[in-house]
């Protein structure tokens, strides 16, 4: 091949290819540029800490100075054999199941009632029912500590005492068999309003003529609800289930304050409160990291699985 004195012009085909390559390059650059701030924060505050936790979890470390005492998987062995961690797992799952079977149906029925029912004073109820969600978790917990207190004159015992003759005040937060249900009741009080609002928003997106058409065709109210409204509300329901499950797992503040750090006798310990109590307050950060890794694995498996299998069609619809 001789060296041409002239610059060879590219063929139209080559030209097109170069253009395409440049466009692709431009696009990649464009994407990189716009995701850079988000990605760097994600790396800095999510990915790196997760990897650090995994690393710390292999050490016996009190959190001061760099970890030096490598103990392989001892933290994990201890964790899985610790009866209080098992209690915490069971409690977290109990909260999750109760949320799905009681809290969400309650929120949905109230949404149907105040969102589209023919109830008088709908707006009033809508506001009132949403109020608990606005309180911070700490304030909610402190208010309820007063309500549930066994001391003289505390609200709940006083009310029950007024209705039931010979009623003995109950230490609602002092019984290790029932404390988890009391915690659930307070969590429900706080969070059903949030789910109710989501359902109400979902209901507004359902065209009224669809339901009217079903009624014209002779459908009973129950049938309209069962075959028209609920299926059309599907994506909202799937979303609230997702939020509710993750919320139950991540619950910390309200439980911590309401039950005095997971008491009595660790009967109301949840995964997150267990992590804080046995990891951080006892200055065992290696152990705490092991809890965090297990915690992360559980929520990750659930999130990915749920999104791939159940919420996929909701994403596809968009």
């Amino acid at each position, binding site marked *: 091949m001789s060296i041409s004195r002239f610059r060879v012009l590219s063929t139209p085909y080559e030209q097109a290819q170069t253009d395409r390559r440049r466009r692709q390059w431009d696009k990649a650059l464009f994407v990189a540029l716009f995701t850079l701030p988000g990605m760097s924060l994600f790396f800095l505050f999510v990915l790196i800490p997760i990897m650090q936790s995994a690393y710390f979890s292999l050490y016996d470390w*009190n959190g*001061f100075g760099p970890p030096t005492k490598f103990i392989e998987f001892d933290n994990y062995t201890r964790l899985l054999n610790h009866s209080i961690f098992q209690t915490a797992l069971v409690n977290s799952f109990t909260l999750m199941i109760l949320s799905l079977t009681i809290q969400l149906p309650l929120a949905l029925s109230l949404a149907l009632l105040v969102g589209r029912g023919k109830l008088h004073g709908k707006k009033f109820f809508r506001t009132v029912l949403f109020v608990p969600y606005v309180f911070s978790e700490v304030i909610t917990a402190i208010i309820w500590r007063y309500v549930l207190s066994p001391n003289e004159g505390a609200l709940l015992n006083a009310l029950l005492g007024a209705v039931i003759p010979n009623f003995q005040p*109950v230490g609602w937060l002092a019984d290790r068999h029932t*404390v988890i249900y009391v915690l659930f009741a307070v969590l429900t009080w706080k969070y059903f309003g949030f789910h109710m609002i989501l359902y109400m928003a979902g209901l507004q997106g359902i065209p009224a003529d669809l339901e009217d058409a079903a009624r014209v065709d002779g459908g009973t109210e129950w049938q309209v609800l069962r075959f028209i409204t609920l299926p059309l509300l599907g994506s909202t329901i799937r979303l609230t289930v997702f939020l509710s499950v993750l919320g139950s797992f991540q619950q910390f503040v309200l439980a911590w304050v309401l039950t005095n750090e997971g008491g*009595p006798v660790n009967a109301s310990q949840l995964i997150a409160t267990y992590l804080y109590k046995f990891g*951080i307050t006892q200055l065992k950060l290696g152990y705490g990291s092991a809890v965090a890794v297990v915690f992360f694995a559980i929520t990750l498996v659930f999130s990915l699985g749920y999104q791939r299998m159940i919420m996929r069609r909701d994403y596809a619809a968009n």
Partner: protein
Amino acid sequence: MRKYLFLMLMLVLSLSLGAASAQEPVTIDWWHISTETSQAAYWQQLADAYMAANPNVTINITVLENAAFKQRLTTVMQAGDPPDLFQSWGGAVLWTYADNGLVRNIAPELEGEWKDSFAAQAALELFGQNGEYYGVPVSWGAVGMFYNKSLFEKAGVEIPTTWDEFLGVVQTLKDAGITPIALGEGEKWPGHFWWVYLATRLGGQEAFLKAYDRSGSFTDEPFVKAGEYLKQLVDMEPFNAGFLGMTHPESEGVFGNGEAAMMLMGQWAPDAQAQYSADGQGIGDDLGWFPFPAVEGGLGHPDDVFGGGDGFAVGANAPDEAVDFLKFLTNEENQRGSAFFLVPVVKGLDDVFADDPVMQSILTARDSAPYFQMYYDQFLPPAVGSAVNDAVETIFAGVASPEEAAQAIEEAAAMELSQ
């Protein structure tokens, strides 16, 4: 002319710079847990006085409730950012901070006159190790039994001096329809007072020090027996309703409202029972105090005292002014002024409680104790202290036997104390 002006300007500038470096502004962050209004006001008053005398110093006070303080301090310590001055009970918790360079050694400032001014030298030792000091006590007291005189009179009982007599008093009070004991076991440390006092009466200094230096164990007889004695009491159901879920302030309220006859508590109780009572007054002159009953056949001296006190530790990055301010806090005059809520620790104040018999008896108990047993949950490393509190709670809840409780404590101790 211009030249002169320039020179004069330079002169003024350099002078003002010199003045500024002598009066460099300094900020002291101070965390304390005296939430009660008059107590918080007293600390503020001392800070104001110090700032007035030292205009370059600014003291920022953060007031936190006890439990909230412990949580927040743990967090800032992990982050390596301690406050300049903060509440401390001394012991292993403070020593852990010291081992990790989070507190400042104030021995150079302390040695000499300041150190000699302390009457409670044993208390001071808990704020240091190996010749170093990281803070000083401001109050040192004793845990003992507070009781309601009018409820005792109503039930017709006398002050018990032995454990058996004490159980008798509990029974008589119960029979008279009076709740014998107020307890906020939700926070766990109030219950550990009971168990440790029994262990101290049963095993004395020797049993504890042996378990601590690992030549003995927390499964040794006195510790198991302490659980058994405690179980005797728990089985009588002497506590206020729902005590397992109740916080310490709530239980102070129960006692302060006159709804329970006794409370095993430290020197802050006279104020706390008033602060948390419904009318803010507490039980007033009905308040009495007696030492924890002796246990028949126990190896500990009946006058041994369990308790501790409060002090302030100095953070690693604290300016010299923080140490100076701490010295100011513990001078005789300011210690005298603080006696309305603290038990002073410096010399020359034997007369402060002349007209307060309850505080006077606490002071006497403290100063005449052959052995002073520090709070386990402060003296021992956090993981062991926490295991003690958790294990004792299981006895109160009746979910574990005294042997199991002792075993749980020993497991944590074996892991943490051997190092």
